[in-house]
């Protein structure tokens, strides 16, 4: 019987549970994350207005550059300050 060495990280994928989707946005605050791609702000402006009409609070965030993952402090701030997040992904 041959034996091979495992070339992977040997990490079972960290089973991080996705937070359940909120059943309602009533009383929630929604993060609107602009990843710095062109026209992401246009899309988020629309969403912000829609949410305001619905009486839902929102807060705007922006990644310094779309090319890199969001800095840890930004991720932390969003998680602390908001209940849901909408990200404008593409241009």
């Amino acid at each position: 019987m041959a034996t091979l060495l495992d070339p992977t990280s040997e990490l079972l994928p960290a089973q991080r549970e996705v937070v359940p989707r909120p059943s309602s946005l009533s009383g929630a605050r929604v993060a609107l994350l602009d990843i710095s791609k062109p026209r992401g702000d246009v899309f988020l402006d629309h969403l912000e207005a829609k949410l305001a009409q619905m009486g839902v609070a929102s807060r705007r965030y922006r990644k310094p550059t779309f090319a890199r993952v969001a800095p840890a402090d930004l991720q932390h701030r969003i998680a602390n300050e908001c209940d849901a997040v909408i990200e404008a992904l593409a241009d």
Partner: protein
Amino acid sequence: MAAIPEDFTGYIAVVKRDCATCRLIEPAIQALAGSRDLRLYSQDAPDFPASVSGVIDDRELERSYRLDIEIVPTLIFVEAGEERARLVGWQRASWRQLANLPELGADLPAFSPGCASKTVEPGMPEKLAYKFGDTVLQTRRVDVASQQDEHELMYERGWSDGLPLVPPTEERVLKMLAGTTRSPSEIIGVIPPDKVACTIEKVAINAVMAGCKPEYMPVVLAAVEAACLDEFCMHGILATTYFSGPIVIVNGPIADRIGMNSSHNVLGQGNRANSTIGRALQLVIRNVGGGLPGGVDRATLGQPGKLGFCFAERERDSYWESLAVERGFSPDQSTVTLFAGGGVHPVGDQKSRAPESLTRSLALTLQTVYHRKIYGRTDALLIVSPENMRVFREAGWTKARFRAALDEELTVDGHDVLAGADGIAEGMPDYLADKRLLKFRPGGLLIAHAGGAAGMWSAVITGWAGSGPGGSVPVTVAIKS
């Protein structure tokens, strides 16, 4: 098992029947056994030498391995468990002196060279190191069932980039690790996208699978280290919808030493080092980092160089300083430069014999990187072939002069490349209309010399759309042993 018993004082001889000298000196060994305390290890036949009783069977080679035997016969003098002296081959005078037997081997020639110990036969050192050595590999073992095809198992487990892999057995991995002096447990970097701390051992496993030889290990390790540098932004290069993958450019003496190609078909197939070093890096990113196409790798089209893209600069007859020297290293240093590159775009100019003309030709293609109307966003790598280099050499153009002339050709008036100009929506924003725009940011154009001696071709390789300090910048690291 201790090769030398504790408190033993006497002699140890290691022989094999297959060695003519060992057979020749049988009378001397017999005499030694008769008058001294001798432990006799035979590597290939427990009944050899037949004239001596109590021969110790070492066909497993454990004792020979532990005694670090390279030649047979070897005679070792031991005092209270400690080796004091060692002789290899038959040297009558020395044997007599060490054994303190003035008449030893009286009928034998004064000298007869030994043979290679079975412990140093091809492939054997790795086998023995695995069996008896102290190197402990930490990696999880994956058993292949007797009915199972190991190649299919590797595919099923998702280890492959699509091409067959060399099965990473313990022997092969130990052999690969012999290509570096660094400890297998050393953490070499944190591999994106899963941010996994990666050991030298894991790199060796992936290098085996990629098809590397042990002597490539220092280059592979440097490439992995470079890919982990924050400014190279491997995560972004992987995640982009653009074409980019890490291109490995090797400079310095190691390129020739490990047989890399910098000449004909330098960017193509056919050279083991070129083909496997870049692949090893990509397999590390895939297997250790978890960077899978369709997962974090979101390339829309990708390009075949993402299997692995590695080549050496042709330094031996270059008129210009090498890429690495331009980037602050000395010509005798071996380095790896990583460039976030797309595919190869040929430049053909059969007529230019003047440097000004050829510069303009090259600039025409360089202007098309990313998009003809986009300036300052995307780096590029220009590979100048020997025949194109000749034009600059004959005109006495240094690399700096070429760069200056190129910059002039690569500068445009902003209003010519604005979004909407020429009926094309893509382009630069209006506020740059009155500016002079340079195609590449400072430091954003790499130039290397490579290729076969014949052919008036050069090549342009596009960088990542996200080039620059906010995305990826090319990185160069020195190759360690």
